[in-house]
């Protein structure tokens, strides 16, 4: 790991945006259920959206880029959790009070101040993830902070907003969304960009996550919490990384992103020194009329190229493992709907360029030594033009440095990938269909009663479980809510539950068993069986290993695998069979044959009494 001096030297700045879905009965602005399961209705709605000018009359940078794409959106509807409000066919209902209350508790737990009145806003989104083309969002807290050891991290804003649709599939012309998730209440917590290094980023994310879980009012499981990370370094621009689901990978991905940004600044220096220049696009269609180049031939349409003066060698410079400036230019061109670009820092022989084609390209683009070029092709002239212009935009930005972008975390390759240009600020306007909500003292007082105190809670948990390490692991785990519901429903040693949830289940998960899909109610049933002495501890593990669907499935497993616990009478009978053998031998014999059915302690008691 690099030291703090390194991060200080590059002017590392980092802030987090944490999004957490709330566990409410209903959605934020309608009476649809906020449930994890949903039944498809089979009705599909097809929509087209466009960027419209916001309050200031200017088109937002990000939204106008999206509308370039000219896509159709298909929305899948569901029985209990999609209504006309969700598909933009009915005005919103009243703001969900339960969600408001939870957001105020979270806000108060971060020492934030609530506004006198909450003003619902529309935040424009044109990627189709909301059928209304905007997300309802409101500021519920400001000027908060979070203590991390000696450090105080500012939390300038906390928002309550609607979750977007889940994407089912997407290509250049169509995106298909599931509307069931839309409108689920979500809290967004933003920190100031004062996080000093990637490890601290991870600590802040982890502590906020812990606080959220301690409210016991948040959804659990994959996707219910999302960390977006904003990063910049000296001489660069803010880049937003979305979808940092896996906290364990966070610091590595941030370090890789820093590498990428440093490389882009280096590239800028090189190009400026070389006096690089990006020229206007030229049509090259005629040159490739009879081409044998597969990628151009298969698109059988228009070809455009750009001269990149003095760029030779630069496009191929590496940013991240196997990612070059060329890859980034290609990412932009792809937004128009092409499959990629061809550039002259690649091995052009692999495409099958003929000598004459290369010569003609060089002539048409007026290429000189030290120059580079980019080519795009598409069947549709519109797409080809858009693609070459987007590529030009990105190439020109190489002279500026780091383009402000929204990028996605790729935790498989531990890097970030381009999603879209970073949205500007002009895409908010008031939600005129929803009333402002005055925040009365009474409401704030009641929120303060439920404030989360992490230190206090962690001490309590430590006492409850009786194991410091497991307690601290539990606080960080999304199993925490499950743990609570088990110990509040079943009379059982908390340590037993904690050990199975955190250690045993993790181990089974690693073996590829879908233990996360076992519902809380099924787990309560299993631990209940144990508490009633119907199964043993080893029996619990055996049942979990079989990932039961429900309580009936648990009963089935107990019968089929013969893991019912032996009662005192049967145990005595069993031990009596080995009369004459030593204690250790008896234990060994019984346990090897009836490992799942016998509780070791009880066995010892029985033997001791003999």
């Amino acid at each position, binding site marked *: 790991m690099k030291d703090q001096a390194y991060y200080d030297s590059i002017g590392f700045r980092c802030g987090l945006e944490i999004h957490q879905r709330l566990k409410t009965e209903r959605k934020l602005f309608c009476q649809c259920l906020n449930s994890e399961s949903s039944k498809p209705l089979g009705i599909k709605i097809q929509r087209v959206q466009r960027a419209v000018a916001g309050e200031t009359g*200017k088109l937002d940078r990000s939204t106008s880029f999206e509308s370039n794409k000219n896509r159709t959106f298909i929305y899948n509807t569901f029985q209990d959790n999609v209504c006309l409000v969700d598909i933009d066919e*009915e005005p919103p209902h009243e703001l969900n009070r339960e969600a408001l209350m939870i957001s105020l508790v979270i806000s108060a737990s971060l020492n934030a101040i609530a506004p*006198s*009145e909450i003003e619902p806003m529309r935040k424009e989104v044109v990627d189709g993830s909301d059928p*209304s083309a905007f997300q309802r969002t*409101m*500021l519920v807290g400001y000027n908060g902070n979070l203590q991390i050891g000696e450090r105080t991290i500012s939390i300038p804003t906390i928002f309550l907003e609607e979750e977007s649709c889940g994407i089912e599939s997407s290509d250049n012309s169509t995106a298909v969304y599931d509307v069931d998730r839309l409108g689920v209440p979500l809290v967004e917590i933003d920190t100031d960009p004062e996080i000093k290094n990637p490890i601290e980023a991870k600590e802040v994310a982890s502590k906020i996550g812990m606080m959220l879980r301690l409210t016991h009012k948040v959804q659990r499981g994959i996707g219910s919490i999302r960390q977006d990370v904003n990063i910049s370094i000296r001489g660069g621009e803010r880049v937003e990384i979305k979808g940092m689901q896996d906290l364990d990978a966070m610091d590595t991905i941030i370090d890789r992103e820093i590498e990428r940004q440093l490389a882009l600044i280096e590239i800028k220096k090189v190009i400026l020194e070389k006096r690089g220049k990006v020229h206007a696009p030229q049509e090259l269609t005629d040159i490739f009329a009879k081409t044998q180049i597969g990628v151009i031939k298969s698109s059988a349409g228009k070809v455009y190229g750009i001269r990149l003066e003095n760029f030779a060698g630069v496009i191929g410079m590496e940013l991240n493992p196997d990612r070059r400036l060329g890859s980034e230019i290609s990412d932009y061109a792809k937004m128009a709907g092409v499959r990629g670009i061809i550039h002259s820092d690649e091995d052009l022989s692999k495409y099958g360029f003929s000598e004459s084609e290369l010569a003609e390209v060089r002539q048409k683009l007026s290429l000189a030594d030290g120059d580079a070029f980019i080519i795009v092709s598409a069947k549709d002239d519109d797409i080809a033009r858009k693609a070459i212009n987007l590529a030009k935009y990105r190439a020109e930005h190489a002279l500026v440095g780091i383009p402000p972008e929204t990028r996605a975390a790729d935790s498989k390759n531990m890097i970030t990938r381009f999603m879209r240009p970073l949205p500007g600020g002009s895409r908010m306007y008031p939600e005129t269909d929803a*009333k*402002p909500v*005055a925040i009365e003292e009474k409401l704030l007082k009641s929120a303060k009663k439920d404030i989360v105190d992490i230190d206090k809670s962690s001490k309590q948990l430590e006492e409850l479980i009786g194991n410091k390490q497991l307690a601290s692991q539990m606080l960080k785990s999304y199993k925490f809510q499950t743990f609570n519901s088990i110990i509040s429903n079943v009379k059982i040693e908390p340590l037993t539950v904690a050990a199975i949830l955190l250690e045993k289940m993790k181990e089974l998960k690693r073996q590829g068993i879908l233990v996360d899909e076992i519902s809380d109610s099924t787990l309560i049933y299993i631990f209940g069986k144990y508490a009633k002495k119907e199964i043993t501890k080893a029996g619990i593990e055996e049942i979990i290993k079989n990932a039961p669907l429900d309580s009936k499935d648990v009963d089935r497993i107990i019968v089929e695998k013969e893991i019912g616990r032996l009662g005192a009478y049967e145990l005595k009978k069993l031990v009596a069979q080995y009369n004459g053998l030593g204690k250790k031998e008896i234990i060994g014999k019984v346990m090897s044959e009836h490992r799942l059915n016998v509780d070791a302690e009880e066995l010892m008691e029985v033997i001791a009494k003999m």
Partner: protein
Amino acid sequence: MYSKEMESLFGKTGVGVGDTVEISSENGNFEGVIMPRPEIGDLSILVLKLKSGYNIGIRLDLIKEISLVNKGKREFAFPQSDAKLKKDLATIGMIYTGGTIGSKVDYVTGGVHMLIKPGELLHEVPELSDIANIEINQPMAIASEDMTHVEWGKIAHETAKMLNKGMRGVVITHGTDTMHYSSAALSFMLDNLNAPVVFTGAQRSSDRGSSDAFMNLICAARVATSSDVAEVGICMHETSSDDSCSFIRGTKVRKMHTSKRDAFKAINNVPICKVSRDGKIEYLSKHREIVEEETKKVIANTKFEEKVAIVKAYPNSDPDIVDYYATKGYKGLIIEGTGLGHAPVSPSSSKGSWIGPIKRAVDMGMVVGMTSQCLYGRVNENVYRNLRLLHDAGVIYCEDMLPEVAYVKLGFLLGNHSVHAAKELLGVNIKGEITERSEVLF
């Protein structure tokens, strides 16, 4: 509107809506733009737009100091498109009357502005520049619920004028609530029509990216430009999807949903045609077609008898309402009856019978028409004795005509014809409002 106390603070500090200000308050300091106050809730809460774009409310008593940073710009301008209308395309007229479509809210001043320049319209709906050459006129800016027959007359005259200038068709943008009253009115008012007259509107405002206004305008312009229909109709979303619109006869259409995009449905009828977003027109029913060599000018007969009303018959209803209208000098009355066209005639209390009041009204010279609140289906005066009693009392049974259409028709008839002629014509088809056959429709 802010409270007097807030306005007085604004006055003292020289700030107002639209200005960028710095506020120091008990709960922190803010910089932002003062937004207009929605006319609900506590009017002493200041709404401030922060740099992030979010608005927050700050209670007056928490404000310690407020100071001006920048005076706001008060003019409002829509973005304009560089695209030019193509003169070689067919010219159509576009009449703006108001409503959700074609208007935008200026969130800084709170004012509503209409898009009246072609450049503004093309910026919103660039597709139009490939469909038609458009001339825009805005004779009024009125919400649909505020429309009266005076506006219907203005729109009819404007339409006739445009068509007599040789335009290929006319698109009329209109608030959706009463659009079907206006489409019925124009159907009756315009004679010698030889071009499509297409009403359209929006259920979701055009300042959201998901607005239905865009496709409705595109499809309406396509009907006006390239359909062979010589009738008045309404062109709106066919379903909830943005793929096609229905063009429905102006006398057979009704708003059947408060908020959905496909609120307008053909009742007791099939839409004239279906228009896809990309311009395919599929004719679905017989209609009056454009005659190429026609030379007659379009005439707008816009007289309308105001003393016509609709009443609804329902359990426990008080028939005195009929006497009320009769004594107020009303000349026509449309009853929205139950089922096949019933009103109570022999309830347990004789006070509840409509027979006497109806007889008296008819004797006073009032034209009384019967329609059904079922909307779907045809009234029939012969099936039950009670129906015959009403018929004998002088009630005219209006076949499968919608109550609202019957109302508009009666006002039109009494405005332009004798009472005798109005009685004769009410139950007879003039502009497609009555069908002879009840087609088997599913």
